[in-house]
């Protein structure tokens, strides 16, 4: 009777992969409340429960984190194509600082006779 697990127990773990097979999980951690989650490293684990336990041991046993995420590495979709991410032609016109406006503004002011407005301290 004790030789095998009861029929209603299905192989352990969170049932998301073959039980007992180790795979890499990426760990994200928040150092303090309000900080963004940052990639910390990775752990090997057979399922999400043990991945969180191991993330806790590796990335917060000395109280370095207030929040942890683990993500199965195979669930991460990858893009590292430089033709897509770093196109070769000039892209400066796509950047918010791409156009220099100072000269145009000065010319417009001169034309209308206005002086340069002072910084509005109350607006912040």
């Amino acid at each position, binding site marked *: 009777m*004790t030789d095998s697990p*009861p029929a209603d127990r299905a192989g*352990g773990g969170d049932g998301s992969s073959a039980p007992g097979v180790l795979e890499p999980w990426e760990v994200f951690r928040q150092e303090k409340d309000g900080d963004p989650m940052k990639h910390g490293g990775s752990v090997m684990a057979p399922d999400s429960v043990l991945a969180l*336990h191991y993330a806790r*041991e590796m990335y917060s046993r000395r109280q370095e984190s207030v929040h942890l995420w683990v993500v199965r590495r195979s669930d991460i979709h990858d893009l590292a194509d430089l033709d897509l991410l770093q196109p070769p032609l000039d892209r400066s016109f796509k950047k918010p600082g791409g156009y220099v406006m100072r000269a145009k503004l000065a010319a417009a002011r001169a034309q209308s006779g206005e002086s340069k407005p002072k910084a509005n301290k109350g607006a912040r």
Partner: protein
Amino acid sequence: MTDSAAFEPLAMDFDGAGDGGERALALLLLSMADDEFVIGFSDSEWTGIGPILEEDVAISSLAQDELGHAQALYGLLVNTVADGRDADAWAYDRPPEGYLHARLLDHHRGDWAMTIARRYLYDTADAARLEALAGSSHQPLRELVAKIRREERYHLMHVQTWIERLADAGGESRARLVAALATLAPDAGTVLAPLPGDEALVRRGIVTEAFATIEARWRDAVGATFRSLGLPTLPPTADPDHARSGHSDAFRALHAELTMVRQSEVGATW
């Protein structure tokens, strides 16, 4: 109920412990501190040889937590007995027969299944004991227990995760777990066996329930888990009169190791 002869080696240890109530408190603190010290030291033997790197770090970290709990409990004992001995003296300067840990912890850590089985039985029993101390009338103990329980939550989660995986895996994993439980189960209840002065502890509100009541609640909880995993029911405690005495050769060997450095230069400042 409890053979007082089993505690005779300790009589000399408590000359400074005052009236009966103080002595009962000292025995409680010493039993808990020794439990945490022995399982902490024993489990630390996995450092460097854990099943995988991550678990190596995890079991080592758990073992360190237990040593930290032991240090804090020995600290309370130092204040209760106040005979000049510090926490290190309590931890290291007694002969093996002077230790008051439960017989469950006399077993060698064994293979991984044995370590998980021992941790599961100990951590669940310890959690039941801590629950009965959460409202203790002894303020320093109550405050320490509140902190220890926050750390023990994770210990329980981790060992529960492991016992489920070993039991559910079938095959060799399950066979090893079943064999480990067969060895350990008759000693599992020793963690909650009544101490001399049990009645005084309850009367003074140091422990809020008798150990028999705590043990019954623990057996119900473990029984439910074991039923769901198809594991054999826990047998009654074997030889309950020697729950914390008559230590094994395995413990004597462990004791020789854990006192080795301290004894290599008696009185040195480390």
